């Protein structure tokens, strides 16, 4: 199965957008996340929304925080039962 096809649609919950990329490997994970971050650039920057990423690719846990940090976003990283959770928000 093509990794990107297993991506679940992003959801919006009270200012928190969720992108579930579990089952997708790097670098496709990175491209999908960047696409979503680019799409939400304005509200992410002004702090009206945050983006919650759910992933299980270990490589992405290194790449994503670094790339998103270089783009000027704040990153909160955590582990969840079946992978990892990264919350992307405005840089304070």
């Amino acid at each position, binding site marked *: 199965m093509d990794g990107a096809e297993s991506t679940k649609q992003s959801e919006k919950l009270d200012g928190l957008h969720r992108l579930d990329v579990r089952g997708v490997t790097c*670098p496709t994970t990175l491209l999908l996340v*960047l696409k979503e971050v680019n799409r939400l650039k304005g509200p992410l920057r002004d702090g009206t929304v945050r983006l919650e990423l759910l992933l299980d690719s270990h490589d992405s846990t290194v790449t994503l925080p670094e790339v998103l940090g270089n*783009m*000027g976003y704040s990153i909160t990283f955590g582990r969840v039962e079946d992978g990892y959770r990264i919350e992307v928000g405005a840089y304070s």
Partner: protein
Amino acid sequence: MVTGSKSVHIHEIRQTVVIQSLIGKVFGTGEVERLMEENRLLYERHSRLSEYLRRKTNQLLVLLGTLPFRADELQDERLLELDPIGTIADAFVQILEHEKSLKERLKISHDEIRAILSSVETGILVLDAEMKVLLCNRRVVDMFGTSEQALLGRTCRDVICSEGVKGIDCTFDRILETKRLCHQHDWQQNNCHFEVTGVPIKNRLGDITHVVLAYTDITERVETERRLREREQMYFEVFESLEDMIQCVLPNGSLLFANRSWKAALGYSDDERDGLKVWNVIAPAHRSACMETFRQVLEGKVMDDVQTCFFSKDGREIEVSGRISCSFSNGKPLATLGIFRPIERQNHGAGQDA
């Protein structure tokens, strides 16, 4: 028997052959060959474009610090849907915007640091790991009688420590050795005294990349302390040479100082005196009056004509008269100073005079 995708493939081939046969019948065999060649060229062009897109995407992904695509990762159609070059280009726009914003903030911070460095009375040098001066303030230039141009890019050892201070006397060397903040209370250079504080700046690996040295000129303070010590010694010698009994007493009654005459009259050594309270050396019958006098002196009263009776180590009573005063600091008593003369000696002196 053929099944599944294989049977579909065979079916497609049969369809193609039928179509080719029909086109051949309608337009002639030459037209079929032309279309087939055109189709082959289109396919080649598409493959080249896909390969180019994948190669350039991989180049950008590696630049972002991630892995390139595996050969089997994402079909061409899905790759086009993801628009990787557009996506990464937009990400780079954000990276550049953020870099620009950081650069502006760094510029402001840099200007703030320059302003702080210029306003402080402490001389400051920022050195790299090779001891070369990267930054200095006006004060350090004045302190060492040099210029900013002479300092920048050269080692502070060359410019400031012309005699080549090394090892334990060199704050920079000590910081490199200990990797910790270093403080020199009295570093001397060209007859001047400096208090030097050195702070290491480390990278993520804990290696020292820079050292900040802060110099405070304490020459005047050191000189004042020296003069005070000399004066103290002079007073000590004067007190020691007097025949009067002199004692200094702390507010808690401890004897801070007693001169040679006092110790000789009462029979105590310096070590023994350290453990005494003033009421230990007053005759029992005079103690309560002495305590009252002591209290009044601590409140600021100067007692010009005090008469009391000392009690020596071997039990002798020595009647004395004298003067007691107290020194104060910020309104708080520091110590009382008592100067006494045995009454017997005073009378004897008066008799001689007579």
